[in-house]
């Protein structure tokens, strides 16, 4: 039993490290300026998002500063749409993205080129692009 005190100390330290330190959801007013900047498109709807969604977006916001300007712009343009999808739709989208990532690079590039051409044609003919962001 004499060994136990040291074991307790070690376990206590381990337990402290195991305590949840993840970013919890918070009202918009409580976000940091950096988080507000990253999540700016959601300023109006933030407080109505579910706790899970807020936690997910906070995780995204944490990595926002590391993105380049184009990626930040795309993220902002698509964020609102992404937040309005149902959990099931987001799940399916992730699955599709993963599946598409496994497709040979040449095929992926061909698809991207085709989509870009479609978008250019739509823009030229005055058709509104899809509402889910570009």
């Amino acid at each position, binding site marked *: *039993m*004499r060994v*136990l*005190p040291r*074991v*307790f*100390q070690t*376990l*206590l330290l*381990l*337990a402290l*490290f*195991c*305590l*949840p330190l*993840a970013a919890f959801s918070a009202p918009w007013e409580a976000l940091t300026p950096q988080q507000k900047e990253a999540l700016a498109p959601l300023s109006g709807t933030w407080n109505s998002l579910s706790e*899970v969604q807020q*936690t*997910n977006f906070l*995780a*995204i916001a*944490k*990595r926002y500063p590391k*993105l380049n300007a*184009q*990626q930040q712009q*795309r*993220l902002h343009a*698509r*964020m609102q*749409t*992404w937040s309005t*999808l149902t959990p099931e*739709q*987001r799940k*399916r*989208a*992730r699955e*599709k*993205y*993963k599946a*598409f990532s496994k497709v040979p690079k040449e095929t992926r590039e061909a*698809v*991207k080129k085709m*989509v*870009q051409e479609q*978008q250019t044609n739509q823009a030229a003919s005055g058709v509104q*692009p*899809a*509402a*889910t*962001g*570009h």
Partner: protein
Amino acid sequence: MNRKLNTREIKQLLDRSAAQIDKNTLEKLASARRTAVQYQQTTQQAPVLAWLTQHGLIHSHSTHNRKVWNFGIAALLALVLLGGGLYWQHAYEHDHSDIDIAILTDDLPVDMYVD
């Protein structure tokens, strides 16, 4: 001439010296030793247990009591560790930020992946 004594020689010298000490002094030394050993046992008590005992929340003077408390605290810590582990596993499984960022910054529009 000074020469270094090895451990065995030092032990022999100490034993010889101890044999020459009078009974009264030996008893005092034995008593001091007992006190020191008792003190060490007390200070080696688990910090939480020591704190609880110090504040009168528990009276764990008996070895049995101490064992029960030690077991209780160990079980509590194990539970906290288990809970923490499960939480992190849950958080890891639900952290989609990697893939979400990839989708939201991809060359292809989001509607390509949405039903």
